Each structure stands twice: as C-alpha cells, then as structure tokens.
C-alpha cells in the first residue's frame, strides 16, 4: 500500500515488523507475562487485544516519524535519494533491535493455548487458526477503510495522481503520513502474530522477511496485489520443495540452498517475463 502511494520501496517496512514483535514482547513482559504457560479465558482475550493495539500504535507512530524525518524532505528528489535513505533507516532500525534485545533469538511468551485439531489427515493448530482469523479481520478492515472512507478515497486519489489530488483539495502530506501510519500499524500487528506463531524473534528478522516479501512482489508482478500473493505462495512452495533436492544434485541437499534456488527461479522467470508472472508491460509515462 505504501508503495502504491509514494512509489517508494520502503526498505524499513520489514524492520518495523521486527520492532513490532519486540514491542509486543516488552509489553507482555511489562504485564508480568514471561513464561510459556498459556493464558485462559477472559484474560487471554484482554491481553491479546491490548498487546496488539499497543504494538500497532507504537509501530504506527514509528512509521510516521520515519516518514517525517527520512522521506518527506526527499519527496521531490531524484529516485535514488529516498531509496538510499530508506536503506539507511532500515539499517538504523536493525541496529536498534540488536542493541535492544541482543543478537540472539528472543523467545516470545506463548500466551495462546496450543491445541492441535485434526481434520482428516491435516493437522492445524489453534495458533494457525488465530493467524488466519486476524489476517482476514485486518484485511477486511483495511479494505473497508480504503474503499469506503473519505480518507481512503483521498489515498486512492493521491496514488493515482498526486498533483491532481492536491488540486482537488487533498492534503497530500497528511494523506501520506496516514498511509505510513496504517502501513506501519499493520506491520506491527504482523510482528505480533509472527511472534505468537513462531515463539521467537531476532533482530535480523526484518531484513529476511523484507527480502522475501519484495522478491515475492517482483516474482508475481510489480504493482499487482494478486501477483504479489501468488509470488508469496510460490516462494513458500519453492522453499518447501527446495529442501527435497537430494545431495546428488546439490552438495548438502537443498535446504541451505533454498534462497539460491528462489533467486535462480526468479532470474529465470525474469528472462522470459520481465515484468513478473502476472505483471503487465506498462508503457512508461513520458
């Protein structure tokens, strides 16, 4: 979403995600929850909602600050400038995470009860269901926000044509700030959910996740939401199948190579479809 509106790859997005998971840990610790014992009943719901909201709020504020400091002064600069600035912000956040929680994995309190349901031969855990539910809720809320509110309409207008939007009385700076606010809040929520599911987090998480996410976007087709989702699924599948490559093909089997395999396939696809799988070759505006 951020990309659509400001046409800038926000390298720091993955790192906001990482900071979000760290904020969630710290907040849970402040509530006195450190152990692995799951909570139950009303407390669980209360803690979940509070943590999620706090994380989202703090991340959103962080996102707005980053936009104000690092991106807004460069709005009219050549393309390279905000990109380099974004890399700089990403590095800063990564080191902040490192200083804050150290260079090793930080364990995330397992507050959600782990129950595994068997549906036929498929095992699905309660955390997985939670992840899916939260994702659907947030996506629905985002969709409603963008398509039905006044601010959402302004956002779409800015994404389409910034100057025209400004002429129509849209405060472009404010809209971009709001976009960063929402984008960063979503990243924070994602960080929280990630922590719940995987039970640990690390300072370099943002970089890894960001790299994979942007690769998915390139693979699926630039500026195409369905394409990005397809790219994400494909990368997941490639990663899973890459581990099955036997020793005879690649030394040490496929597992350590999964990133290399992903990129090899990405480059192969780009040779034949330069704009990604579902992307359309759009003529550039002069």
């Amino acid at each position, binding site marked *: 979403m951020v990309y659509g509106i400001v046409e800038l790859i926000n390298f720091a997005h993955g790192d906001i995600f990482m900071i979000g998971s760290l904020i969630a840990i710290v907040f849970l610790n402040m509530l006195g929850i450190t152990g692995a014992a799951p909570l139950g009943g009303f407390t669980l719901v209360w803690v979940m909602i509070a943590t999620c909201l706090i994380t989202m709020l703090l991340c959103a504020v962080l996102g707005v600050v980053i936009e104000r*400091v690092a991106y807004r002064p460069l709005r009219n600069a*050549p*393309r390279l400038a905000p*990109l*380099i600035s974004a890399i700089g912000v990403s590095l800063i956040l990564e080191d902040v995470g490192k*200083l804050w929680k150290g260079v090793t994995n930080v364990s995330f309190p397992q507050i959600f009860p782990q129950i595994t349901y068997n549906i036929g031969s498929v095992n699905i855990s309660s955390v997985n269901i939670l992840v899916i539910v939260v994702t659907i809720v947030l996506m629905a809320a985002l969709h409603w926000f963008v398509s039905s509110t006044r601010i959402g309409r302004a956002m779409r207008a800015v994404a389409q044509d910034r100057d025209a939007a400004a002429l129509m009385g849209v405060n472009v700076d404010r809209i971009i700030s709001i976009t960063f606010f929402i984008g960063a809040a979503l990243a924070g929520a994602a960080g929280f959910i990630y922590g719940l599911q995987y039970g640990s987090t690390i300072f370099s998480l943002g970089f890894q996740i960001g790299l994979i996410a942007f690769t998915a976007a390139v693979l699926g087709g630039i500026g195409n939401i369905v394409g990005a989702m397809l790219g994400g699924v494909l990368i997941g599948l490639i990663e899973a199948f890459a581990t099955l490559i036997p020793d005879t093909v690649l030394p040490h089997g496929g597992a350590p190579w999964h*990133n290399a395999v992903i990129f090899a396939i990405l480059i*192969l696809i780009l040779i034949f479809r330069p704009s990604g799988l579902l992307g359309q070759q759009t003529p550039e505006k002069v």
Partner: protein
Amino acid sequence: MASLVSSRVFRPAGDTRQLLIKWIVALLVPLVVFTFVWSGEAIVNNVLLGLLAPASASLTPATSVLAGIFILIFYATILALTGYLVAADSGRRGTVELWIDILVFALVPLLLIMTTGLVIGLAASVLVWVVFFYVRNRIRKARGYKPLRPTEALTVVTAEQKEAFMQRALAGGFWFGAIFALISLVVDLIFYFSGQLPDVLLIWAIARTILLPIAGYFLGRLGGVIALRHVLSAANGANEESAESGIEKKKQLEVLSSTRAREEAKDLVPNDLPLRSSGAQRFYLTLLTAFILFYPILDPFLFGSGTGGRLAGYTDAGYYVILALGLNIVVGFAGLLDLGYVAFFAIGSYTWSIVGSTQLATVTGITLSPAAASWLFWPMLLVTALVAALFGVLLGAPTLRLRGDYLAIVTLGFGEIVPVVFLELDKYTNGANGIVGVQSPALNLDFLRGVPGLSGLAGLHVEWSNFTPIPYYYLIVALIVLVIFANLRLRDSRIGRAWIAIREDEIAAASSGVNLVNTKLFAFAAGAFFSGIAGAYHAAKLGQVSPDAFSFGDSVIYLAMVVIGGIGSIPGVIVGAFAVYAINQLILAQLDTLASDPNNVLHSIFVAITQVVPGFTFGNIRNLVFGAILVAVMIFRPEGFLPSSRRRRELHHTAADGVEVSSLDVVPGAPGFEEEVRVE
C-alpha cells in the same frame, strides 16, 4: 600578442606589493608550521646528516636520498606555486579573509601532532573546519556579505600587461624564498648557539640562505609561465586576426550560462580564487603524487612509530577505493542502484584464491609450485576481473529491464546468494573454513637462477608479507591509479556520456539513440570488473578468504562510500572511501579503546550508556552509524561532500543558477533569457 582578460580586474603594477604581502604571508604560515613545528626540519636534518656525515646518520643512504628528493620537490613546488598565485590573483578578494582561511587550514598538522591518535586529530580538524565554515557563513549573512560578482567584461591583454604578470611571478617566488630563507636562518642560528645544531649543518644553513632566493626567482618564473598559459590567449602572433578570434572566445564565454561560465572562468588569469584554478591544481597534483610515492619513507617522521600497521591500514583503505570507484560506475554514472555489489568482490576474491592456493589441485588436479602460482597473480588479476565482469553481465542481462527499486531488490538477492553458493560448494571452495594459504603476488628475479651470467641477480626479490606492507602499498597505489585513469576515460567517453544520459532520463536517452540494454550491461560489467580486481588483491593480501566476509552490510558500506563522497564524482568517491574506511575500521575501534580506558572522558559516557543498553559497544552500532549517515547525507547534502559539478547543477539548478545576474549570462528580462536558463 593579444589575449583576453577582464578589464575591471587587471590593475596596474602598483598593486604588486599588496599581492606579494597577501600571498607570501598566506603561504608562509603553513610552510613554517610544517617545517618548524611539524616534521619538515627533522626530515631535512636527517637527510643532510645522512648525506654529509653518514657515520652519525640514523637513516640508510637510500632512504636519505629518497626523502631528500621528496623535500626538494616539496619546497620547489611551494616556491613555484607562490609565483603562480601572485601572478594569477586578480586582487579582488580580501587579504584578511584569505589569511584567516589559511590559518584555519594550517591547524591540521598542529592538531595531528598534538592529539594522540591520527584519526582523532583528523576528526578534530574536520570539526574545526565545520565550525569555522558555519561561523563564517553566519557572520557573512549577518553582515549582508555578497559573493564577488563574476567579472564584468573581457578585454584584450597587451604584451606589457603579460610582462607585468611575469614580473609579479618572479617577485613572488624570489621574495617568498628570501623571507623563508631568512626565517630559517634565524631559527637555525638560535639552535646553533644553544648547541642543538651540529656544525656540519651550519654550512647548509648558510648555503640555503643564498640558494633559496635564487631558486625562488627561477621557480617563480616557472609559476609565471604556467599562469600565462591560462591567460585566455587568443591565438599565436600579434596580428589583427588573433584579436578577432580573441573576441570570438569572449563571445563564446558570453553564450555560456552563468554556472558554466563561472566554471570556465576559473581558469582565467587573473582570477578571483586562484587557489582553486586549474593552474594551481597542477601544483597540488605534483605535491600529492610526490607525497604518495614517498609516503612510506615520510611516515615515521610525520606520525612517529607504527609505520607498518598504518601502511597496512592504508592498503586496506585502498581496495575500498577501488570498490567505491567500481560501484560509482553503476550507481553514480548509470544511476542503477546495486545492493549486491559485494557479490562481485566475493567472486573476485574466490577466483584468485582457488587458482592461487593448493585448492587448485583439489579442484582441477593441476599442481603448481608455489613460485609459479604466485607469478600467476599478474595475469590472473585481469582474468579475475573478467570473470567478475562476466558475472556482472549474467546478473544484468535478465534484470536490467526492471525498474530502479526492483533492480535493487534483485541485486540484493544476488548479493545474498553468492556467499551461500561459496559456502555450500565446499568441494571447490572448502566451505565455511574458507581457503587459506592464498599466494601473494610474485615480483622477483629467482627464475634467473642458473641462467649463466645472470644468476647473481636471482636474489633480488620483493618481500610480500603482512609484516612488510610496503610492496602492497605500492601495488594498491598502482592499481588505484590505473582504475582512476580507466574511470576518467570511461566517464568522458561515448559510453560514459550514454550512462549519464540514462541516469538523467532513460526515455530521452533511448530516444536519442542510446542502446539502453547494452549500455546498462556495460555499466554492470565495468563495475564488476573493478570489484574483481579489488577482490583478487584482497585475497592475495589477506592470504585467505572465507564466505562470511561478504555480507549485505558490506554492500551497504560500499554504497555509503559512493553516497558520502558524492554520487558520480570520482574525487568525491575516493574521499568517501577513505572516510568510510576511517569510520568503519579506525574511529569506532578507537572509540571503543578510549571508552574502555577508565581515565578517559568517554569512559563515563560509555558506562552511562551501557547501563541503559547492556550490549553497547561502538563497534556494535556500525550499521546504525552508516544508516544515519546515509539518511543525513540524502537529506542535507544529496550531492555528497565533493560533488561533480554536473550533479550539483542537477540537484540545485533552480535555486543556485536560475536568476543569478552576471555579465556572462543574459540579464533577466532581456530577450533570450528564458532559453539561456533552460540550457542548464
């Protein structure tokens, strides 16, 4: 003889005295500081003792001779520079202003010797400069200071006026030499009578007092000749035609827009800022070349003991320079953001490591003797670079059709993959252990052993090891010079112009007949080529290579070098590489050392920080520092600290040039003004 000069600028010879005082004082200050406060006198005395009284000398004869040559070049260049400056100055810029500037700059050597660390001294000087420029700008603003307006009109210079320039140059050189000789004589006499100066050197002191003014006279003449070459001369001969073509030159200058004209006018003699003219740059270049060539000999005089370690550090900074210059082609010239540049460096390192170690036998079954393998370094330097360039093309071909930011992602991915490949292909690369025992380059005459008549020469060889970094120093200097030369030629070539055209506007470039794919591919290949050279050098110097030395963090550091110095500017990138090296390897490490020392001021700050952030060390926040630098440079000075003039104009064209009034430009409002501005 007719040539062009601005009429309002040129003054009668009566002002010569004023100019002499201005420049002689300005240049004497740094020279006296160097000679008597810093190390100049020590070098001279050591050299003289070595030559006059070898028994009591502390230097070997060869070192004495080399240091002596340097000192000769140094003082001669300064004398000629004085002549040049006195002749080339228009006298419009204030004397006191210049003196204050020079005084601030002369602080550097003082700070270098007064503080304990070389790096801390440099950092302190940079701090002083920043404060100075800030205060000066504030004062100027407060007093309504206006910069000198560009010269108002151009007229033809007569032969007499040229003669007057020459006279000034002669006087400048002579009086500078005479005054300096006098000061030196007084100082030497004081030392002599207090018994600190050996008798032998008194002869020298007297000889110098006589020789220096004479040398000054002739060297001033040399400076004058160089200055006269920059008087906008019309043509040879004094006939009517040449005056005509002189007018033509004047018209040419008038057609240029103000910025271009100001840049062109830098070379005019007389000149408002002769220190920045291209004539003066020749002298700086001479000094710099001499300094770099003789540096290993001078270092102990300038900075005391520990030369070996420092030189090793500089050689490491050297491959940063090559990497930065290579990346500058991709990012700076062609405007393609490459975040996986470290990959090519890794490929270069591994290529030489596999060939230049016993790994070759493991991989191919060919066993080479170490002597033969180390000779292979020289041809392999080229092969390695070509291999890296090949990979540049392989990566570039499918990805270059992507838009800027997505290209960044894919190159980033490539940078992540390559170390993994080297890690996992342990059959060829020895995996996580890396390759050890990589040969250093060979430069010896051992192969003459057994050749009749020549076997006596066989013992001559250059000792390459980490304990004697001097050969590496010269190797990297030679490589850097080659790379800079190649970069300059590339930038000014047809392909270089095509790169810049692509950076400015891809569609316009394509419409003008630039082949986008080939040009971009060539940029990738050229960038990778230089990084391959750096890689081979690095592997040979270190003697080993391991896959964990090539991370995304390194790619970002290389990017920071280009960004700090000035995207697309060759001198800027070189300075940027040194700055980043200093921050990365020296300043953060030195801060940690200082912080762990309980007597230091920093220690209490450090303790305070660690109470809030337990794992804090200065080395730990490397990425944070570079991230902050990247953001700050992008926001406050996107063209970098030593920008290329073209880039600066691009980034500031509306603010700086648009409405500036100057004679060389068209006056605002006059017909043709709009077109004139748009040319920029």
